[in-house]
């Protein structure tokens, strides 16, 4: 084999490797089939289903920064809550209830807040960053508490009135309309996430997560990259918050709470970080388990969630999807998961 043949072969297999990592796999259809199937199998559970879809979108937005860029945060609810309040206040105070634009408005407000806070926060790392993200969410919650005239304070924001979707589909008692609405929004946001993580930009985020010092040494504007993905993630969390406000027609301080920031982190870790679909699996498992355990034992349901988290962290470092990958590799050795 001569030199140029060798070059040709090496190049071809390199291109193939890049293309392979971006290719759609049949397993990727499963969560969407499940989501559509759930509508027909459990039509009475669509209110819960809608909340699950919203939580998945929120967890997905966290995966962009945590799973890909390695930004650890305990304050992601700040952006979910900012979106929820922005959407809610648009309707309650300004009387604009068109659902799609109101949701996008929530996303835009959260993204703007994400850009400003991220610009400052992302100069820090590790424990300092963790505490600052936590503090940001607490500050925002206290602000919302104080600005009672606008937010309703502790009593919550009332008077949200959302118009029919696309001017046609009314909000129904079973939550069917909102289930399809949330599923569509989730799917579109997922396509955006998938596009980003497979782009050169997305790959550079993984580089930052792997070794920030080396990224500096190859000329990466690390801070700018992190602020960019943080803004996108905050915007997506805000869209989730906007959907939440619209589907409940009510917003309380709870949307900004530490409990919400913590729960989304747990959902993502349980499902598997840095693989997009971890958000789907973790969130569904978490919320369905929560629902079932609460029926079983209204006082101790959190015990079951805690136990699940301990087991996953101790035994499946890659979350439930990581465990599934390991199992696939054992059953079909040599096959790529």
């Amino acid at each position, binding site marked *: 084999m001569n030199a140029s043949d060798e070059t040709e072969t090496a190049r071809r297999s390199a291109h193939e490797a890049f293309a392979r990592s971006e290719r759609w796999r049949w397993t990727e259809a499963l969560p969407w089939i499940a989501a559509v199937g759930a509508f027909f199998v459990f039509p009475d559970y669509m209110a819960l289903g809608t909340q699950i879809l919203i939580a998945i979108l929120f967890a997905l937005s966290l995966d962009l920064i945590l799973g890909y860029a390695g930004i650890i945060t305990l304050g992601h609810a700040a952006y979910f809550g900012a979106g929820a309040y922005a959407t809610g206040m648009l309707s309650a105070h300004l009387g604009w209830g068109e659902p799609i634009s109101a949701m996008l408005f929530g996303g835009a407000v959260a993204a703007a807040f994400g850009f400003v806070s991220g610009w400052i926060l992302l100069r820090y790392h590790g424990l300092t960053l963790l505490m600052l993200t936590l503090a940001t969410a607490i500050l925002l919650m206290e602000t919302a508490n104080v600005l009672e005239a606008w937010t309703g304070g502790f009593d919550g924001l009332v008077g949200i009135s959302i118009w029919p979707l696309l001017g046609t589909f009314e909000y129904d008692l079973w939550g069917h309309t909102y289930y399809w609405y949330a599923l569509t929004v989730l799917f579109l946001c997922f396509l955006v996430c998938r596009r980003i993580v497979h782009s050169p930009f997305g790959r550079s985020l993984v580089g930052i997560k*792997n*070794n920030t010092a080396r990224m500096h040494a190859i000329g990466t504007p690390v801070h700018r990259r992190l602020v960019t993905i943080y803004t996108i993630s905050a915007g997506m969390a805000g869209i989730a918050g906007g959907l939440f406000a619209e589907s409940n027609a009510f917003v309380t301080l709870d949307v900004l709470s530490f409990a919400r920031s913590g729960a989304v982190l747990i959902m993502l870790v349980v499902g598997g970080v840095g693989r997009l679909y971890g958000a789907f699996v973790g969130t569904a498992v978490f919320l369905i388990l929560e629902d079932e355990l609460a029926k079983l034992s209204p006082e101790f349901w959190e015990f079951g969630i805690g136990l699940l988290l301990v087991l996953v962290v101790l035994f499946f470092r890659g979350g439930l999807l990581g465990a599934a990958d390991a199992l696939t590799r054992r059953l079909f050795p040599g096959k790529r998961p």
Partner: protein
Amino acid sequence: MTTPVADNAPVLETRTLSKRFGALHVTRDVDLSLSRGARHALIGPNGAGKTTLVNLITGVVRPDGGSILLNGRDITGLSREDRVKRGMARTFQINQLFRDLTVLENVALSVAERTGAARRLWRPASVDSAVIDEAVDILLTLDLAGDAQTPIRELPYGRQRLAEIAITLGQRPSVLLLDEPAAGVPSAESHIILDVIAALDDDIAILIIEHDMDIVFRFAKTITVLVSGGVLVEGPPEDIARDEKVRAVYLGEDTDV
């Protein structure tokens, strides 16, 4: 991004560069000059301030006095990234690699940063054929192509050291700082690293910081000896080997000069 300079003009220059950490004067008025294609070694006993000097030149720490010029331009106030963009690349004494990524992806990250492709977030990475091709070509020249699809963490240490160099080549540097490139590699394998360094493009000015005197004397055309943060002596290898002051400094150390 090499800017054209006259053949004998310095590509990298430091002028009376100084740095103190509290009472400790770690860099004392260091003048260093590398012209195009230089093969320059920086040696000195432990604690002489070699790593600090590299950190000053690359912009990891800021000097208290003096200036640094790259291709004739003062870069003393520039960030790490801006120095890299102007043609300065470095390797690390302890591997700084993207351990979860394959060898190919490691180098492609570097190439994509140089070409600006890494800014793009709305198209698949596989579309950037030129980036992938260039990464593959670098791997071929370093004999790493066989490991292209191997994640870095699964690679033997000596091969990881080669990947360190491969990443810098993705920057197409005009100045390359090699911080103990053979550190941690068994001496039986260090010749592989040295062969790779010897085969690097003649246009690149190389500053090598090294403890292994075999490597230094095989590689360097100029040697600077650093002691207590200042330049003790500079000259061609033959002169350094004979220098009484250098012998005195290394006396009691295991290194055979």
